[in-house]
């Protein structure tokens, strides 16, 4: 009985700590606004980035040269996104508030990926500008 109680408490705490940790790691990207350039490039029409855009934005971000050391963060976001995706599917019929929460978190992940893409596009442009400047 005590072991079962400890297990339930630990799993509940693990869930909360994990979500808060992922949010703490992703927090830098959540606040940043997106430029018009990245909205055009990724065909983002609504003010908020949709969760379903995540895969497309991630593919575009992979094509661009890396800016700084953001690949690890992007990988962590991808893992978090797919875990949320599983949770959202499982909770859709069982618990709609949990599913709604997972959807919001997935939107946060998509926004983070869009911010990374934005940074990489800006970095690519800067590289192009430097190459142009050196040659001409």
């Amino acid at each position, binding site marked *: 009985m005590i072991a079962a109680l400890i297990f339930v408490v630990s799993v509940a705490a693990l869930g909360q700590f994990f979500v808060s*940790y992922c949010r703490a790691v992703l927090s830098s990207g959540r606040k940043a606004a997106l430029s018009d350039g990245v909205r055009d490039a990724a065909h983002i029409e609504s003010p908020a980035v949709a969760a379903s855009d995540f895969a497309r934005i991630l593919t575009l971000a992979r094509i661009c040269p890396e800016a700084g050391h953001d690949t690890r963060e992007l990988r962590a976001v991808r893992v978090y996104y797919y875990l949320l995706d599983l949770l959202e599917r499982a909770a859709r019929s069982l618990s709609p508030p949990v599913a709604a929460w997972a959807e919001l978190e997935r939107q946060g992940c998509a926004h983070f990926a869009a911010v990374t893409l934005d940074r990489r596009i800006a970095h690519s442009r800067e590289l192009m500008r430097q190459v142009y400047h050196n040659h001409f």
Partner: protein
Amino acid sequence: MLGPSVHVLWFISLLLEIAVLVCALYRRAFARYLALNLYILCSLILTVGLELCRRGFGIASFTYFLGYYCSNSLLCILKYFVIVQLYRLVFAKTDIGKEIRAAAALLLAATAMFSYVFVQHSQGHHLTARFVVELEQNLNFLGVVLVYLLWGAMLKLRETRTRLIQFCLALGIYFSATAGTYALRNLFPSLEPAVLRCIPLIAETLLSLAWAYTYLMVPEEARLATAPLAFRLPGQSPPRAPQMVNAR
């Protein structure tokens, strides 16, 4: 016998512990987070020492047996000191360091006493092993409760130091994963060899990874609002503004 996957995990964990220490020294944060770094340093030394002991005396020897359980209990207590240091850092402005130290010592003594009372009827040298296992399990669960309370205090006090937040949350993940695994082992003893043996090692590896990442990527001056980090379902109200802290 240990499987190859356990050996690989063990080696990765060792490398990550070295990485934590290197990153702490590189960022000049060794003294600031002394308990945390000492825990990692001791873990590194004890892991290597234990491996040498295993090779020298064999896994079935009494020396290895003693070394294994002594190192485990020492690391458990050091982990406990890491939590105490995080508490002291969070409550640094409130000047309750002495109270925190006293409460921590009392809790540790009470947990050790409780663990001893629980296993005192065991016979022979197995008493040491059972006591250490019991103490480890109890300290892990105590760790979950203490880190959870610390996280609650951080939210309430609107703690903004990103490093501190990430250290605390990573420790919370580690303690809850380990305590949950021990509880599951007690519930289903037959699961132990197949699934549950690796989880504490994976949790330890991830803890080192998270701490190394925090040292390397998060500068000491980085600040972060904690309120948006709290787990809240849509429709739940955000936390109320904190009361004034009595800062002397």
